[in-house]
């Protein structure tokens, strides 16, 4: 019996591996992808990058302009994540099975969150372009909607994870619904929630570049502008500042996480 059990598990693993290889091979055939060429073009790309894509002294003159745009982008990302967090908190409290008021509200909250989360940030940007045109507001709302959907989901899981124990205990003392939420649910899940918000800020700064290209604002637009006008030196400088900003934000949020958790 026992040996049979392990043999069966091994057969299953082999089957999964086989299916994976098949899918991989199938997609190579279907897309006419030349594996050898794919690898050999790597050095060429690097070669092009090294000979064109680097900042020069002339491009450094643009640095103040770049930094101003970068700052705006970072601030928009932070604003979108934090405002989304406040809304997400409300929806998560109504959505979580532990703190829900009733099943109807819970399903509605979860449904709205799922809808917002599953529409990509680029798609949101395109949709919102119609309403707000090419302005920073479009980018802000695109980031806000995606952050809201994601954070609601993350917060619901956080609340479910910290458990129903203290909620039950406080309800049994006769505490009212909002008292229970503020004295038990929020204190237990706040550090984890802050950690999610920091993660969202990082993600937003990354997506903000793309959203900027689409909506013609912020650092993304600046990059697009110089890149299309073949000014690769300035474009490369912009990429470097973005990477720098992301690393800095990541460092700060890791520090905050260490302190609160």
């Amino acid at each position, binding site marked *: 019996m026992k040996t049979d059990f392990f043999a069966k598990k091994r057969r299953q693993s082999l089957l999964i591996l086989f299916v994976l290889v098949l899918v991989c091979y199938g997609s190579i055939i279907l897309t006419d992808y030349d594996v050898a060429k794919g690898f050999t073009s790597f050095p060429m790309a690097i070669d092009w990058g090294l000979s064109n894509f680097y900042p020069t002294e002339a491009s450094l003159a643009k640095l103040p302009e770049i930094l101003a745009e970068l700052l705006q982008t970072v601030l928009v990302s932070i604003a979108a994540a934090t405002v989304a967090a406040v809304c997400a908190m409300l929806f998560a409290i109504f959505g979580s099975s532990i703190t829900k008021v009733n099943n109807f509200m819970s399903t509605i909250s979860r449904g709205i969150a799922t809808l917002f989360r599953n529409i990509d940030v680029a798609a949101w940007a395109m949709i919102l372009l119609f309403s707000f045109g090419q302005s920073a507001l479009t980018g802000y709302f695109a980031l806000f909607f995606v952050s809201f959907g994601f954070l609601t989901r993350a917060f619901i899981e956080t609340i479910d994870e910290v458990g129903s*124990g203290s909620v039950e205990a*406080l309800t049994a*003392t006769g505490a009212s619904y909002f008292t229970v939420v503020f004295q038990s649910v929020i204190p237990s899940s706040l550090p984890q929630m802050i950690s999610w918000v920091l993660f969202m800020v990082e993600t937003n700064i990354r997506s903000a570049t793309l959203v900027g290209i689409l909506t013609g604002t912020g650092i993304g637009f600046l990059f697009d502008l110089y890149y299309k006008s073949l000014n690769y030196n300035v474009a490369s400088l912009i990429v470097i500042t973005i990477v720098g900003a992301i690393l800095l934000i990541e460092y700060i949020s890791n520090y905050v996480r260490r302190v609160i958790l």
Partner: protein
Amino acid sequence: MKTLLEVKNVSKQYGTDTVALSDVNFSVKEGEFVSVIGPSGAGKSTLLRCINRMIEASNGEIIFDNVNVQGLRKKELRRLRTKIGMIFQHYNLVMRMSVIENVLHGLLGYKSTFSGVLGLYSEEEKKKALQVLTILGLQEQVYKRCDQLSGGQKQRVGIARALIQNPKMLLCDEPIASLDPNASKIIMDYLKKISSSMGITVLVNLHQVDVALKYSDRIIGVSKGKIVYDGSPKKISEEEINTIYGSEAGELMIEVGGK
């Protein structure tokens, strides 16, 4: 002595086919120490939670302190719950908060939503919390975070939170199931002391029959949602315990009579 709690013809059904309680009847006098014993899934937790309506009974009547519990509206239910302290197997504390904050949570039932949400407590209430903690031997732990305490200490914080409510009755759902024998004894001794010195009625679910026999004034045996024994721990026979647990003679490791 006065009757504090009366449970009449109470039934509870989950969904369409799980009958957790069927036609349960018993009453508890003021200051009594009553243990509910019975096998897993017998309906002990359900029974306890029907009393303060953490679970709604399907049928029957529950009278607590001359009030019909079933008929209460939201506000009145909150007032009822302040008079009933509850203690849990897994302590159910807010682990990230300090000991004293957790004890003060016991007062939230008396507060308006406004001061409850903000956690506003008077100096007097804080003093009271310190007093209760001293009674339970936790004076050294007052400002520690609850996740730094041992299991036995956590359960004592749970008891302190219930006591500060100034309750007439304590409902304890397996208070010692996660504790070692030593800590178990400390907790049971505190519960006994609370019952005898403060006159608070204690209704406790237990898995340890020997503990139930040693501490209780009365034993209620539950099996498959029905009460199959209700009487003194001194008179209970090995046979009766076997009926409660649906086991054969000599299967259980319990000594009955005196010990």
